[in-house]
Every structure is written in structure tokens, then in C-alpha cells.
């Protein structure tokens, strides 16, 4: 029973990781930029979720608003911070991204106060008993369910629609895609919109699980998501999903069995180092 519980905990955490890391993978795949400031969008999503829920009483509305607003914020971030730097070597946009991320923590502090916010009446706090003695929180069900739905929606978009096909073509050969009429500007906007709105969903869900959003909630998310995309093999969507879930489950078991030696984040990085020693290209990455 404990195993099953730990496993579910791991999947819940892993789903959150997947939602965050996916945006990084998408941006890396398309532009070869390490989009560190992505975590700021995750935090923004969390804040919007709490604020809109508190203002309107509707968690669903809060989720939708957070995803839309943060999606647009991601597009804006691309337009203002990355697009002007595209002709520069990649480390230039990396520096810009880090700066943006650090600045964002201060902005959250100034705008919403240093101590963070909570839901006035936290939504979805109940649980159901799946079978005798085994409980699942509504919030956990929502995390796994929503992540699954979002991933399926993304898979459908990229495999079954002309836009998705154009998007994948742009990732492999942007010049050729353009030559056949793919508007790569729109592809990039779409990319940032989707990645950012997924991060926003993760932010709202984390706020729900912890009943707290705070200015620094993005920092752990940022470096862990970086670790995950490296683990998954940079730019591989499948690798990112697998690495996210694997890491979630591993951390979940690890905190119980080796928690006295290493804390949750240390376990994650120990695992990262271990994998990279054996497979430097990551779990799913191609040749280096």
C-alpha cells in the first residue's frame, strides 16, 4: 500500500514537472535557447490562479485565465527579450533569460508582497477512497487528469493538424519550412503560447497542492526543469515526459528510503549526474 501511495505521489509530482519542462523543451527544440525565465511564467500562473480564484470564487475560471494570460505573457517575452537576440550566439539569450528570471522574482515581491498568497477557501480539498484505506485527494486527481488532457491535446495538435506538421517541420529545418510558406514567426508565437500556458497550469496546480504561492516558487522549478530536459535528451518531447515522471517517482521513493542522506532535490541531481555519466546524451537524446 505504501508503494502504491509513493508511486501516485511520484506521478503527481512528475506530472507537474512535465508541464513545466515541456515548455523548456519546446523552446530549446525550436530556438536552441535555454529559456530559464520560463519558471517566472510558472510563478505568474500560480499568482493569477490564486488571485482570480479569490476574486471570483471559480477555480476553473482561474485556471483558464492563468493559462491564457501567461500564454500571452510568454509570447510577449519572446517578442521583447528573445527575438532581438536571435542573431546573437545562444549564451546571449541565456544571460538575458537569467536576468529576466531574477528580475521577475523581485517584481512578484514588489507587486504581491514578500510572504506569498494563499487561497481564501482552498478549492478541491476533499478526497475519495479508491478502495479500503487508500485515499486520493481531488487535487491530485486533477493534477494527473489535467496534465494528461493537456499532453493529449498537444499530441493531437502536433500530429493531426497542418499547423502541427508545419511546427515540427520548422523544428527540423526552419529555412526549408519557410521556403514552403510556413510563417515561422507564428510558429514561434504558438510555441511560446503553449509552453507558457502549460507552465501556468503547473503553477496553478502547485498553488493548489501547497495552498501557497510565493515570489521564489519558480527557482526550484527552474533548475529542476533544466535538469529534466537534459535528462530527457535536449529537445526531445518524449524524453522530457519520461524523465519528468521518472524523476517524480524516484524522488517520491527516495525521500522515504534515502531521505536521511539526501533531500528531495539532492536526489534529483544525484540521479541526473548518474544518468549523464552513463548516457551523456540523456535518456532519449540522439547522438551528441
Amino acid at each position, binding site marked *: 500500500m505504501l508503494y502504491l501511495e509513493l508511486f501516485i505521489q511520484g506521478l503527481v509530482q512528475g506530472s507537474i514537472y512535465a508541464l513545466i519542462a515541456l515548455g523548456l523543451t519546446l523552446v530549446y527544440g525550436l530556438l536552441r535557447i535555454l529559456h530559464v525565465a520560463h519558471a517566472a511564467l510558472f510563478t505568474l500562473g500560480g499568482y493569477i490562479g490564486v488571485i482570480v480564484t479569490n476574486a471570483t470564487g471559480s477555480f476553473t475560471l482561474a485556471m483558464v485565465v492563468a493559462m491564457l494570460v501567461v500564454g500571452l505573457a510568454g509570447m510577449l517575452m519572446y517578442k521583447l527579450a528573445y527575438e532581438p537576440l536571435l542573431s546573437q550566439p545562444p549564451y546571449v539569450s541565456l544571460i538575458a533569460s537569467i536576468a529576466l528570471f531574477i528580475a521577475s522574482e523581485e517584481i512578484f515581491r514588489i507587486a504581491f508582497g514578500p510572504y506569498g498568497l494563499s487561497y481564501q477557501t482552498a478549492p478541491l480539498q476533499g478526497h475519495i477512497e479508491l478502495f479500503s484505506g487508500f485515499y486520493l485527494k481531488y487535487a491530485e486527481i486533477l493534477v494527473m487528469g489535467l496534465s494528461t488532457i493537456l499532453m493529449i491535446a498537444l499530441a493531437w495538435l502536433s500530429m493531426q493538424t*497542418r499547423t502541427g506538421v*508545419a511546427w*515540427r517541420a520548422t523544428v527540423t529545418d526552419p529555412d*526549408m519550412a*519557410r*521556403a514552403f*510558406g*510556413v510563417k515561422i514567426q507564428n510558429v514561434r508565437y504558438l510555441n511560446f503560447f503553449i509552453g507558457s500556458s502549460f507552465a501556468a497550469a503547473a503553477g496553478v496546480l502547485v498553488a493548489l497542492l501547497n495552498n501557497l504561492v510565493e515570489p521564489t516558487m519558480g527557482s526550484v522549478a527552474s533548475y529542476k526543469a533544466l535538469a529534466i530536459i537534459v535528462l530527457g535528451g535536449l529537445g526531445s518531447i518524449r524524453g522530457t515526459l519520461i524523465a519528468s515522471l521518472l524523476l517524480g517517482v524516484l524522488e517520491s521513493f527516495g525521500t522515504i528510503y534515502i531521505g536521511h542522506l539526501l533531500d528531495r532535490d539532492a536526489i534529483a541531481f544525484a540521479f541526473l549526474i548518474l544518468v549523464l555519466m552513463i548516457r551523456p546524451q540523456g535518456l532519449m537524446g540522439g547522438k551528441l
Partner: protein
Amino acid sequence: MLEVSKLSCGYGDIVAARDISFRLSSGEVLSIIGANGAGKSSTLMCLSGLVEQYNGSIQVNGVELAKLKPEQRIQKGISIVPEGRRIFPDLSVLENLIVGGQIVDKSTLHLGCEQAFNYFPRLRDRQRQLAGSLSGGEQQMLAIGRALMSQPKVLLVDEMSLGLMPKVVDECYEVLNDLKQKNVAIVLVEQNTERALNAADQVLLIEASQVTWQGSAEALKQTPELFNSLLGLHKGN
């Protein structure tokens, strides 16, 4: 149809071609011939908008393309079969064709796929296969099929026969011939000079980024020394 005048292009400080001018009517084939590094591919890529243009003008049916981005040029009827094929390896055959037909509506897209499969029946059987797993010849067929999806008026074709069996080359040239009948203007870059000259209505010779001779294929044949030296140049291929 396609009118190019005083075109120069290159990569920053490296000039790849200068002062290229020609005028091509619909259903005509222009062969550009020159040694490795002469600037042939750069010229084609410049027509598509993928290589920087310094000077000159490119007009398709009187519409100036010079200021247009690549994604806008294809709307004006120009399409490319690039050097090295450059199919999208991790997309399926069908998906490659869909990208080629990015600018057309759904029904034209279906017609385009049918056309590509009729030209190259082998692609029909492999439409769900990843393009990267096709043989070289099949990849070339796909590159041609993809370029035709937008129903171009001008087709740019670079090194189509490189590395292909003569039989497959024949197949590809038959398609070009059919397109010619359908009034598509074709600019052909080809190492196989014999084939290039056979197909050509007009010929343009480039050497070290400069045009050294240009005229009709007829005129070239009446200049035996030049004609023979051209054929001799690539006898090895």
C-alpha cells in the same frame, strides 16, 4: 514569367554570384552550368529568398520579389527542390507533402498529394513511412513532390540527379518534362551536363560567381568548341 536582372547575392562579405540576368517564359527550361563553388546553388537559394540578395531584381509575372520573405515568395508561385533534397527526415512522407502544400487549401492539398503519388507511385506505398528512412532516390522524388504541392509557376531544381541510378533520373526528368508541358518555368542546376543541355531551352554558364556565357541551347550547339568542352568537363560523372 520569371525575369531576373543584375542579381547579386552572397553571405555577408562573401559574394556568391554577381550580375545574373535572364528572362524565362512559361514552359521554358534554363540550365545553369558551372564548376563546384561557382555560385549556382546560392543563386537558386537567393531566388527563394534564403540567401541574401545585394542587388538587382527578381520578378515573377511582373511582381517584384526582392523585398519579400521566403514564406511570401512561394505565394507568388516560386518553389524549390533544393540541393541535398532537405526533406524533413522525422516527418512522414505524407507530412512532408503537407508542408509543401502549406499555402494551399485542403482540396488542392489532396489533389497535390494525388499528383505526387501519380508521378511517383513508390511514394504512395510509403506515405506513412518516415522520410528519413527512404532511399536516396525516393527522397529525391519526395523533394520534387513536395515542391509541386504549392502548384508553382516557377520551379527551381538543384542537383536533382546527384547520386541516383540512371533509371530514377529518367523518371525525374519525365516529371520535369510533364511540368514543362503544363507551362511551368524551370531553372535547372545540374552536374550532369549532358542531361542539363538536353533539357534546356536556355543555358547560363557561371564561373567564379560570374556569368561567362549565356544564350539559347540552339546557339550553344552552334558553338561546337564551347559545347564540347562543356560535355568534356563532366565526362567523369
